Every structure is written in C-alpha cells, then in structure tokens.
C-alpha cells in the first residue's frame, strides 16, 4: 500500500519532468520557426498532451496522499492560482495604461511564473504545517 502510494507520487513527479522536457524544446523550436506550419502545430500539441498526462497522474497521486499532504498540495495550488491570476490582472491593467513588457511577461513566461507561484505556495504551506 505504502509502496504503491510512493510509486504514484514518483510517477506524477516523473510526468512533470517529462512535461518540462517537452515544453522547453517545443518553445525553442516554435520560436525559431525551424519547421513549417503543419509540423509546428504537431510540435505545439506534444507539451499539451504531456501536461494532460501529468495532471491526470497528479490527481491520482493526490487521492492517494494522507490528509495533511492533501492540505499542503491544495494550499499550494490555491496560492499558485491566486498569484497567477493577480499577475494576469496587473499585466492586463498595465497593458491598458500602455505599460507592458512582453519580454518579461509574455505568454511563454506566464507558465514559468505559474510554476514559481505554486512552489512558493508549497513552501509556505509546508512550513505552516511543519511537514
């Protein structure tokens, strides 16, 4: 039982890494327009698929966690989501004011900020519950 829980958790981490490993090269290839449009679309779909698999594995792993770990993950996701939404809102409002820097806050970076905010939430929650 304990072994299968650990294996589920490990699987979600592995799929997160696979997602990262497909996302970054895909962004690079699409940014530098190495291939034509049909191939580019196929490349763009790959990280979407790996992300969906990761989310599926993450939810499965979440259901196998004990309630303290579930709370930590839930708070991490809530903090990550709230901070990402806040960033989006600020960027949108600044955009309306004519102040925006797509070099720092473009769509590509938004994913990275989302992950960063999740990890901030994770650390905050872990410290809160002493896990």
């Amino acid at each position, binding site marked *: *039982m304990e072994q299968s829980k650990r294996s589920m958790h490990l699987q979600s981490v592995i799929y997160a890494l696979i997602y990262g490993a497909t996302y970054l090269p895909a962004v690079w290839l699409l940014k530098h327009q190495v291939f034509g449009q049909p191939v580019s679309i196929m490349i763009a779909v790959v990280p979407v698929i790996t992300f969906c698999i990761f989310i599926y594995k993450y939810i499965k792993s979440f259901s196998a966690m*004990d*309630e*303290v*770990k579930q*709370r930590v993950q839930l708070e991490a996701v809530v903090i990550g989501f709230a901070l990402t939404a806040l960033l989006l809102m600020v960027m949108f409002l600044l955009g309306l004011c004519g102040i925006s820097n797509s070099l720092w806050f473009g769509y590509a970076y938004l994913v990275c900020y989302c992950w960063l905010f999740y990890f901030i939430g994770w650390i905050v929650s872990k410290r*809160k*519950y*002493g*896990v």
Partner: protein
Amino acid sequence: MKNTIKVERAKKNWTQADLAKEIGISRQGLNSIETGKFIPSTLLALRMAKVFGTTVEVLFQMEGDEDGLGE
C-alpha cells in the same frame, strides 16, 4: 485545539512512526497533528481513538472559546 496523542502514545510505548503506520498516514503528518498545527478529519480522529482504545473526546479537547458558544 489541544490533544493528548503524545500521552496516549507514551502509554503504549509507540513512536510517531508506529502510530502513523497504524492509522495510515505519514510520520510528518502525524507530527503536524500532534503539535496542533493540523486538525484531523473526523475519520482520522476516530481511527486514532480506536487504536488507543479510547474516545475522541479524550484525545482532542477544545481550548478557550473554540466551542463558539459564547457566554
């Protein structure tokens, strides 16, 4: 919310790891409950009471005005 998990555990001569295994949670999770940082669900509290052969009321007590009933 205060609890007597540590006392009950000492009576049985169990480590946190032993109790955690009995009730099916992680040792860190149990430590979080024992130190009062996390309040467990009813199911987990009942499970804990069962392994100690006691009641939830003995294991967990409300402090001050936590009952929310006022004066």
